[in-house]
């Protein structure tokens, strides 16, 4: 699922490891979410929204996934 995680993380000047530590997950998890290869669980999505002080639907864009060519 496409998301604005990389932009928001870079705005804060955080590394992927720093974000992973904030969320309590592995760095690989952050990498995979940013690349759109891993959809986080709902609790993790809420923690992401909490970290970036925004709503979940502002972070993730489900429409983009459906737009991919089959």
């Amino acid at each position, binding site marked *: 699922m496409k998301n604005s995680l990389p932009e928001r993380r870079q705005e804060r000047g955080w590394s992927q490891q720093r974000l*992973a530590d904030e*969320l*309590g*997950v*592995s760095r*690989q*998890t952050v*990498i*995979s979410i940013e*690349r759109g*290869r*891993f959809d*986080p*669980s709902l*609790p*993790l999505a809420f923690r992401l929204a909490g970290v970036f002080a925004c709503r979940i639907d502002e972070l993730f864009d489900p429409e983009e996934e459906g737009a991919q060519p089959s």
Partner: protein
Amino acid sequence: MGVEPRTDSRTRWGRIRFAGGRLPAMGVAIPIGLLLAVGVGAITLWTGVAQGEHALPVAGVFALVMSWGLVGLVWAIVVDRSSLRGAIDKPDESIESTWLDAAMAGAFRDTIMLTGLVLAILSITGFELDVLWALIGVIVVGFFSTFVRYLMAKKRG
């Protein structure tokens, strides 16, 4: 001038999950694991697996081979994950957990299919397979399939 308190008390091997975490996990795992390994050695003597003039050395080798695995097993049981340095707080929400779940599900399918195939071959050919080797085969296929599938999932990212 006072000494600054340490901000991270976590250690490489962690502390035990009971008794208030006062003891290092390895300090508990090593003696208990070695004791269990000696017990395994004693069982080989008692059951006659190790017999003859070299019974004691054979039992010792059994105990030695089993010792590292038993120490590791006891450590995994007694350690408090949150006391491990570098351990992530939410492993179940990390992608590695998803990879492992998928790998184990795939390995289960592989094991069932392979067992069915071998069973069919044995039924047709009439060949008899020792149950010990059959069970070892099932374990090996399960572990190998899980390992390969996990690596593939990791490579895909």
